[in-house]
């Protein structure tokens, strides 16, 4: 006996629609991989001719400090000073931003009252909406004067300035993601902790932080990513000098700022242009290694 289906064509439509939607969503998911691969391919394609040229030495590119892309007599492409500049500024930014960001997230999520929490969240989100040019301008005009006044440095645009500006830029990201991670810890954990007589701080330190560590690490990593990749603000705040920094008050140039400043004039297809793409590739590798190490670290913790 055949089942009388009420509206077979409608059912079929629903099935087709569902399939279609599923395919679409799958496409969205996969597209992220496609985009990353495409960007990597593009970077590599633009950089490859110089990377495999015999006149180009990768060791010189990575480990010498002389960056003279437009020299008339002796062109040299050494990026060590630029890499050191990027790392110095990012490291300082993280030293400032991570304790502040995680502290703020813990306070917002665990300690403050609901009204204050809403206000704080709105203000923090507002902070992340400030464009990076504005941050750079603050670094160039306000921060640099303060640094000159309080440290006696001859020039106020330096590692310290760039680090503080980048810290201010990455704190909002760290706070909002870390706060989400802490919120995602089930309330039963908190209740169980409280029932065992833990103080609020013990609860945070012993229960919530370990439970939320993946999310917290993701928050820190996104902060690092923002700091490494930031261009405009560091271009303005770090002084743009090719120089391996010896102190916080030295001016530096970062990989990103260097690409931004020089790609416009490098004739397409020239060695200089290709080397700039190679620096892009280097930047990509640095972020990739940071992410990978963090990922492995998390897995290591989890296995224990």
């Amino acid at each position: 006996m055949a089942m009388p289906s009420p509206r077979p064509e409608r059912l079929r439509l629903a099935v087709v629609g569902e399939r279609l939607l599923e395919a679409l969503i799958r496409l969205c998911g996969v597209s992220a991989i496609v985009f990353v691969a495409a960007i990597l391919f593009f970077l590599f394609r633009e950089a490859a001719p110089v990377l495999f040229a015999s006149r180009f030495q990768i060791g010189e590119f990575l480990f010498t400090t002389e960056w003279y892309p437009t020299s008339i007599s002796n062109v040299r492409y050494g990026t060590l000073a630029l890499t050191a500049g990027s790392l110095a500024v990012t490291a300082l930014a993280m030293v400032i931003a991570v304790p502040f960001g995680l502290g703020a997230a813990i306070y917002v999520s665990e300690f403050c009252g609901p009204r204050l929490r809403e206000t704080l969240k709105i203000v923090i989100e507002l902070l992340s909406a400030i464009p990076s040019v504005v941050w750079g301008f603050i670094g160039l005009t306000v921060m640099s004067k303060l640094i000159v006044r309080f440290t006696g440095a001859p020039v106020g645009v330096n590692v310290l300035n760039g680090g503080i500006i980048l810290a201010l830029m990455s704190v909002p990201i760290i706070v909002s993601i870390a706060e989400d991670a802490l919120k995602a810890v089930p309330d039963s954990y908190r209740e169980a902790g409280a029932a065992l007589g833990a103080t609020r701080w013990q609860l945070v330190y012993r229960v919530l932080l370990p439970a939320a560590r993946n999310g917290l690490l993701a928050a820190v990593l996104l902060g690092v990513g923002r700091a490494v990749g930031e261009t405009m603000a560091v271009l303005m705040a770090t002084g743009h000098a090719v120089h391996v920094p010896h102190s916080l008050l030295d001016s530096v140039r970062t990989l990103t700022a260097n690409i931004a400043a020089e790609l416009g004039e490098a004739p397409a297809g020239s060695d200089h242009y290709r080397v700039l793409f190679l620096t892009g590739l280097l930047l990509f590798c640095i972020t990739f290694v940071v992410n990978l190490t963090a990922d492995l670290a998390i897995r290591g913790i989890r296995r224990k």
Partner: protein
Amino acid sequence: MTRARFSTLCRKVPAWLAPLAVAAGLAACGKSDSQTETGQPAAKKAIIQNKGSDTMVNVAQVWAEEYQKVAPDVEVEVSGGGSGVGLAALNRGAIAIANASRDIKPEEIEQAARNTGKVPKGFIVGYDALAVYVHKDNPLSEISVEQLAQVFVEGASIARWSQLGVKIPGVADDTIVLVSRQSSSGTYEFFREHVLGKRDFRMGSRDLNGSKEVVELVGSTLTAIGYSGMGYATPAVKKLKLSPKAGAPAVEPSVENVTNKTYPLARSLHVYTLGEPEGPVKQYIDWMMSVTGQKIVQDAGYVPVPPAQPTKP
């Protein structure tokens, strides 16, 4: 009922029209682009894209504004970036006029020929002295070109003010803070060619993105030295007198000394077009050379082209 349906229709319409609007917008953009490239007089408004030298960007801006009053149907869009950036854009055929504070290089002419099949044509629209700036409280008042090279060159022998016989008041560390320009700047290349003798700059200089920024940083840093167009002087800085050789009398970067060519770092300011300019572009360049146009050059702190001298590339 009908009203409700009408309003839903209204709400739907923009969504349907959006692609059309975008297409129309693109078409309009494409149109204005082609006008710029050919430089032909347009039905409504001709747009002249003008890009390049940061030294000249102030002058170019005033030119553009004043020309609007003379020829309301022509709009000039000005941007900076450096002489190299301007000439690179010209050689791609992206802009109509490039400003340059240096001469065009042979390879740039080649590049233009390869991309567009045209040869860039240059006009001298004014003169500038590349001034050497120090902080106004710096006791130094003159320097020779050789000393200047020894301050800025790679492997430099002069790193402290005391080596120039100068004591900066109220400063413990008298290391010279070098303020330079990014490598796409014509000023950077002019300095490298005429002061450093094509040698390289010392590493660790602050390479700033504009003429104005150089003067600003020098003006706020007691131990700094930098170079920039003479038109950018402010009360916070001092222009050094420059002697061509050690022992020779030092010459001030003034209009007079640029005109009589005694100042060692005098240079010409150029505009370049692809091929012989025509239409609005030609009219605009002719107007730059007119009394009004040259008055603007002078007001910006540069040296106008003497009226007797015919313009040549």
